[in-house]
């Protein structure tokens, strides 16, 4: 064994304990009711602490999404709780404190969301407040002016972060002109968003049809459904959402190098399309992702971090939008090792796409996937977020049992096939944010490069 112990002798250690087979996940019992207006309400009793978590997801997608839409969505998220006919922004904020609560809004090309929590005894009050905001947010002009300004400053802060710059550059390369490729809203357009536009957006596009409300906590499920129905049963309908079109597949081409002069690291990203959660091939892709870079014990981390010391936290993800999924490799490496890091990433991808994984790698990745699903739903907040996420993809709680069952059946051959289809270097685009004067020449030895300025 490499290394010497820091201390000797330190006694006799017991043998490594063996762990029995993985138990099947005990699914929480989800009470569900679909209201007459189309709102689906779910409630789960999970009573470790006397709190309740609330998640609301309202699909608002449109076939066409404009920069104005994007700016309005961003300001809407910031102003949804800025006043109603009967309460000012300060009244709302104070009321939430009284409930031991919090509530925040967000909106993007796919949906509007409202997310929060309160002391469990105050669930009816929290629901009433959410319903009041949805039906009657007034977007007072003075509040909108303050928040518009704050959003513009936040955008400046976000745009200055290299990881955000890299994410935006990846989205542009992978999704192109599709709304998913839009990047951050244009601050100029944000500056022109009006109170009337926000009111109209809420009225025209935010309604119960297809929407999902989830409540998890120290509550009685049936009673919670009744309470939700009492305040949201009369929620007026809006124009139904439209399904976003699927984005066109990305066009392969040279490495995109976003020039960030003076950068001491290069933010390397490789990305490409992936399979949706509900696709029969997804479990094998999920396993391939874990083996390759989805956890610490992955090939990517072993190579780039633990062997070479090029980077702190290399990792890969499969993220899902409603109309598309994306596989992304992330490695923020020291500027001086940018090209060697690319060589190692390509090497590991090539191995995945052309050679079978080892049986032990497969078994460990399967146990990790299944085990972390159980961890993700251990807290009220985790379960609430997971349920609403699943619902936004048309999936129910059974997914938490179906996915492990499907993962258990994945074979070495399945993983090779998934990796060949989705992790092959020829299928991925490469995007980097770094100092072009330092890294361009060495990257050119490996690939064509297109240098672009910071957006």
């Amino acid at each position: 064994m490499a290394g010497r112990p820091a201390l000797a002798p330190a006694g006799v250690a017991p043998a490594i304990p063996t762990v029995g087979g993985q138990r099947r996940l005990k699914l929480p019992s989800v009470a569900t009711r679909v209201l007459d207006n189309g709102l689906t309400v779910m409630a789960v009793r999970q009573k470790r602490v006397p709190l309740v978590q609330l998640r609301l997801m309202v699909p608002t997608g449109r076939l066409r999404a404009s920069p104005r839409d994007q700016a309005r969505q961003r300001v809407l998220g910031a102003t949804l709780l800025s006043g109603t006919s009967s309460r000012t922004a300060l009244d709302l904020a104070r009321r939430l404190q009284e409930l031991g609560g919090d509530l925040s809004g967000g909106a993007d090309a796919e949906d509007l969301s409202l997310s929060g929590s309160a002391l469990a005894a105050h669930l009816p009050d929290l629901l009433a407040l959410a319903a009041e905001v949805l039906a009657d947010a007034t977007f007072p002009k003075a509040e909108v002016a303050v928040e518009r300004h704050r959003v513009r400053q936040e955008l400046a802060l976000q745009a200055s972060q290299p990881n955000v710059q890299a994410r935006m550059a990846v989205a542009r390369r992978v999704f192109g002109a599709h709304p998913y490729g839009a990047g951050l809203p244009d601050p100029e357009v944000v500056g022109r968003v009006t109170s009337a536009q926000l009111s109209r957006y809420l009225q025209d596009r935010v309604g119960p049809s297809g929407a999902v409300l989830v409540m998890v906590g120290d509550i009685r499920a049936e009673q919670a459904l009744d309470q939700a129905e009492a305040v949201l049963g009369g929620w007026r309908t809006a124009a139904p959402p439209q399904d976003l079109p699927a984005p066109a597949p990305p066009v392969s081409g040279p490495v995109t190098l976003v020039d960030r002069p003076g950068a001491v690291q290069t933010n390397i990203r490789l990305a490409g399309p992936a399979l949706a959660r509900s696709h029969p091939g997804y479990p094998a892709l999920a396993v391939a992702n874990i083996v390759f870079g989805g956890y610490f014990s992955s090939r990517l981390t072993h190579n780039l971090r633990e062997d070479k010391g090029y980077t702190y936290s290399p990792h890969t993800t499969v993220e899902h939008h409603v109309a598309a999924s994306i596989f992304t490799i992330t490695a923020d490496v020291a500027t001086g090792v940018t090209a060697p890091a690319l060589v190692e990433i390509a090497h590991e991808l090539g191995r995945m796409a052309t050679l079978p994984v080892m049986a032990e790698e497969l078994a460990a990745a399967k146990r990790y996937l299944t085990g972390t699903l159980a961890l993700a739903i251990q807290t009220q907040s985790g379960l609430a977020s997971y349920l609403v996420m699943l619902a936004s993809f048309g999936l129910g709680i059974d997914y938490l049992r179906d996915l492990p069952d499907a993962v258990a059946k994945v074979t070495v051959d399945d993983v090779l096939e998934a990796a060949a289809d989705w992790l092959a270097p020829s299928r991925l685009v490469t995007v980097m944010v770094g100092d072009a004067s330092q890294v361009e020449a060495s990257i050119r030895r490996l690939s064509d490069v297109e240098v672009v300025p910071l957006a």
Partner: protein
Amino acid sequence: MPSATRRRTPAPSVPVEQTTLANGLRVVLAPDRAAPTVAVCVLYDVGFRSEPEGRTGFAHLFEHLMFEGSWSLPKLRHAELVQGNGGVFNGQTRADATVYFEQLPASALELGLFLEADRMRAVRLDEETLANQIAVVQEEIRVNVLNRPYGGFPWITLPPVLFDTYNNAHNGYGSFVDLEAATVDDAADFFTRYYTPSNAVLCLAGGFDPDAALPLVERHFGSIPGRRAPKRPSFAEPIPTSERRQKMTDPLAPLPALALGYRVPDPLGDLDAYLAAVVSTEVLTDGDASRLHQRLVKNDRCATHVGGYVGTFGDPFDVRDPTMLQLVAYHPPDVATDTVLTGLDDEVDQTVADLGADELRRVVTSMQAGLLRELDDAVSRGLMLAVLEQLRGDPGLAARLPGLLAEVTPAGVSEALATWVRPDSRAVLEVVPGGQA
């Protein structure tokens, strides 16, 4: 306001059993038998405040080494055993402690105990692994500090303005020079000195039966030889007698920012006064209804964001004295720093003069709910109980805190603000964006 809100302190149920092994290891058991997973947390009473001069960043570097091989296991095996059995792991180096945890399926409890005991028994070290982890830590510092705007603001940049002594003021991430100077012998000495059972706390939280778990704890940890815990020096230093100001230029930052540091009562020596200071911080900064948000962001519009907390990383209960109350504001380039400070000081004076019982009760309710959210998660519950055992010998405080917060009075908050949140003894750090200084 429409409906009246019932007043009742929400009481979390956190059953706790404590014991101490013969080698001095303190053990806290917090069972939640229905849970299908268990968190195994180990805390060592050494943080970056204790690392020697010339070795800044060493406590954190050493935390990395604790994952790189132990008495029975080669490099990488620790992570493989945790993740390959469906679990997750991590560690964190704080000012006054270094913590490690695994969250695992309940059936893997004994594996978690083995893994923590094995590296408490001995960490396994060599030159190659040390060099590798020095490089990894340097990339961590580049990601989190050097290659991004506001990197290390304010946790690295504010302490040297408020504090004078090396222990309280130095950069806990460390300088590259100091990191590169670290040796295997340094690490062996650090382990021998600080990573002894009697300088550690083990806490289990989640799905296990204490009667079954305790013999397993004894089996894995009981045979680790005991060594005397190091004597901990005092980190005390005088409170500043005048305002201290410093400017730093952040070439990557797009907007000016401001951090203020104020000394607070001893978290351990005077819990009542400390709680009043913690509550007063929330009165100033908790959400959109808070005093400073209303005043600076909404009314004066001289700031776009205001926040604050007590402690190094936001947890007021994981630090010893001296620590600080921190306020942070981001503001537009056309607003002068003194405009923000004047508004802030005036609002603190206003709060001292007119804080009402209703306002305080709302803030405390919000804080109580925040504590409950933390207790819902097995890992954060386990770490909270471990640190309460470390610093106070009182993990039961977790369940009593909501009630203690409710006992803080408006007069207590006013007194805390008037005594501690004063311009004439604070640190002010201005971040000047884009090399405009």
